[in-house]
């Protein structure tokens, strides 16, 4: 794989369309989405419910399949779920029958070419990175929601995936925990230079975390506008400059939504 070729995007989406056959007939979840995600970029897909952002993430993860168009990881088409694209879900999805360390080891154990010691070392490194080194023997239910989501982050980072996909992982957390995690994520992102794609309906969060914010509109999900966010990191969610940028994105979203209603 030619990772050193700077011109190859980490992920390429070309005219991606996905439809579902539901009880209410055929629904187009996303339509004609084309997008390049740069290597080492933090890209945020933002939009109201029904804009197909989670569908898009599932397509990238290989959990769903496109009806039209194609998705490339580097130069390889994405067909199935794979270790190179790990997902952080809205709920932590930690396995309750394993302790924290074993949860983090789960993905690592599926990665070939490592000794058990290297796996352990790597799992402990990522647990300490999210500040939970002392919790490795705990069971998921003994941790708070924020801690669980941190373990989930460590679990997704540990096998060193090429792309980290995040499906609203902060939406079920309280505001304080969330702010703390924004800091953690940015720190890890700056340190590890990972390609991250985050899906959220929280525009503040999008502007706080993303290098680029892609605004989607619903029914069917389409790309409306793309915002480059050039604020220095680490960004604070309460930063006034960030707030005014978020207001701009919100205004753009409402104008697109009204346009949809009037047409």
């Amino acid at each position, binding site marked *: 794989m030619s990772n050193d070729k700077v011109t190859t995007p980490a992920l390429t989406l070309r005219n991606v369309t996905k439809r579902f056959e539901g009880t209410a007939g055929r629904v187009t979840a996303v339509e004609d989405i084309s997008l390049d995600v740069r290597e080492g970029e933090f890209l945020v897909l933002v939009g109201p419910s029904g804009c197909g952002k989670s569908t898009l993430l599932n397509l990238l993860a290989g*959990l769903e399949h496109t009806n039209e168009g194609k998705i490339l990881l580097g130069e390889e088409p994405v067909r199935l*779920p794979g*270790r190179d694209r790990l997902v952080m*879900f809205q709920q932590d*999805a930690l396995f309750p029958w394993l302790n924290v360390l074993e949860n983090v080891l*789960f993905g690592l154990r599926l*990665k070939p070419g490592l000794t058990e010691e290297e796996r352990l070392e790597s799992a402990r490194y990522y647990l300490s990175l999210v500040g939970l080194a002392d919790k490795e023997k705990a069971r998921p239910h003994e941790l708070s929601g924020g801690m669980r989501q941190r373990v989930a982050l460590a679990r997704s980072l540990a096998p060193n995936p090429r792309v980290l996909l995040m499906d609203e992982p902060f939406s079920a957390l309280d505001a304080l925990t969330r702010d703390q995690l924004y800091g953690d994520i940015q720190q890890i992102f700056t340190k590890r230079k990972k390609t991250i794609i985050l899906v959220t309906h929280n525009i503040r969060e999008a502007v706080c975390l993303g290098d680029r914010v892609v605004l989607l509109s619903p029914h069917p999900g389409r790309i409306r506008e793309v915002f480059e966010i050039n604020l220095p990191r680490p960004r604070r969610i309460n930063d006034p400059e960030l707030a005014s940028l978020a207001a701009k994105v919100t205004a753009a979203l409402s104008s697109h939504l009204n346009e949809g209603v009037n047409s």
Partner: protein
Amino acid sequence: MKLPRPVIPTLLAATFLGGWEWFVQAGHVNEVLVPAPSHIFKWFYESLANGELLSATCVTMRRLIIGFAIGAALGVPLGALCARVRWIRDTLGVLALGLQTLPSVCWVPLALLWFGQEESAVLFVVVMGTVWAVVIAVQESVLSVQPLYLRAGMTMGSQGWHLWSRVIFPAALPGIVSGMKQGWAFAWRSLMAAEIFVVILSGFGLGSLLHAGRELLRMDQVMGVMAVVVGVGLLADIIFFAPLERWLRHSRGLGR
């Protein structure tokens, strides 16, 4: 004042047994039909002393454990297949649902014709009592595994056998254990029925002992065996299923 938890059950049991003893000793009922507790204890002591009770219990437990093990060993993979493959669920799954409602003593005539008055006939009846309950429990618990766990496992590169053994099976385990418990209860019932109805030449079990008690008009023996049967059922729950279920719930933080 707070009494220790065993006090009330012990007092009630003592009162009940005492009242029963008095009622029989005072001549209010025919002692042949309703033996006094003291007679039952006497039978219990004697049959323990001459080894009869112990050997019958061993014969029965051996049949139960082997039959249950075969039933579970067949039921778990079949249940998993039912959950996994649509057409198997529509055929074998439906059949299992039907056969589960069939009292397994109904298998006795067939078992006798096929296997004769042999050990294999009893085992067959026990397996038939166990397997369908286990199939259905496994199928249902596998089907109700949270899709989120599957997705998480799959994105981490788990698939095929690995996904089954490391994600689906552990996630379904609480349901599978409940199914096993139900299967165990069914197996126990079907075994007693088989042993009471049929003289099995290869061993004299608890059911045969109970049947013999009836033929000898020894109601102390009949009720004594009944008490042992209840005791074995309770014991299996106390030393095996209850701790297993408690551990599962506790380690996953599900209730108390």
